């Protein structure tokens, strides 16, 4: 299935684009997606934390992704 990953802040700069189109196995887990991304972009692995948001909520590592999900990488937040 195809996923579009939205990127912000330092993850946008690491990848060099505001979003990333990926082909992943059907029912890919959040954890596996992160592993795949960190392999492609090793600098992602050096962040203090890296979360995945699915449909505006933080996703657990074991959560399974679906093609229509709105997925985003969330590097350490620093609002306020």
């Amino acid at each position, binding site marked *: 299935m195809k996923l579009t990953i939205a990127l912000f802040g*330092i993850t946008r700069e690491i990848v060099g684009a505001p979003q990333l189109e990926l082909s992943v196995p059907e029912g890919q887990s959040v954890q596996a997606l992160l592993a795949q991304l960190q392999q492609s972009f090793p600098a992602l692995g050096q962040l203090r934390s890296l979360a995945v948001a699915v449909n505006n909520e933080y996703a657990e590592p074991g959560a399974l992704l679906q093609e229509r999900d709105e997925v985003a990488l969330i590097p350490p937040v620093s*609002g306020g």
Partner: protein
Amino acid sequence: MLIQLTDQPIDVAAVLQAVQADGAGAVNSFIGTIRNRSTGRRVVRLHYEAYDQMAVHQLRKVAEQAVEKWPMLQEVAVVHRKGTLAIGDVAVVVAVSTPHRAESFAACQYIIDTLKEVVPIWKKEEYEDGSVWVAAHP
């Protein structure tokens, strides 16, 4: 409940006005402003970036959690700025109203502390000789 993410300067008086309530004996607010120094370096300006839709959703959730924890909350307002900010600019305003003061301090602090942990907003500090995404690296 007023929840807003804006690229325009925040009108602090308007945010305080938004939490006026007849049942309130206390209005408490936190105003986050841009500081000129960070970890010993002189800050020139800050760039705030947000995942707009999730940021608004999470801001609302934080405010709703505060209402659950302090059911006596009369009104809650949270307005966060994004875009490029200069020293002294207002980055965020949290305001709450409650019947008595103790809960207003607690709820206001809970909202700003939790916002800083969960709301997908990022700031990049710009110095005279470079820039850094705050808290990105260990």
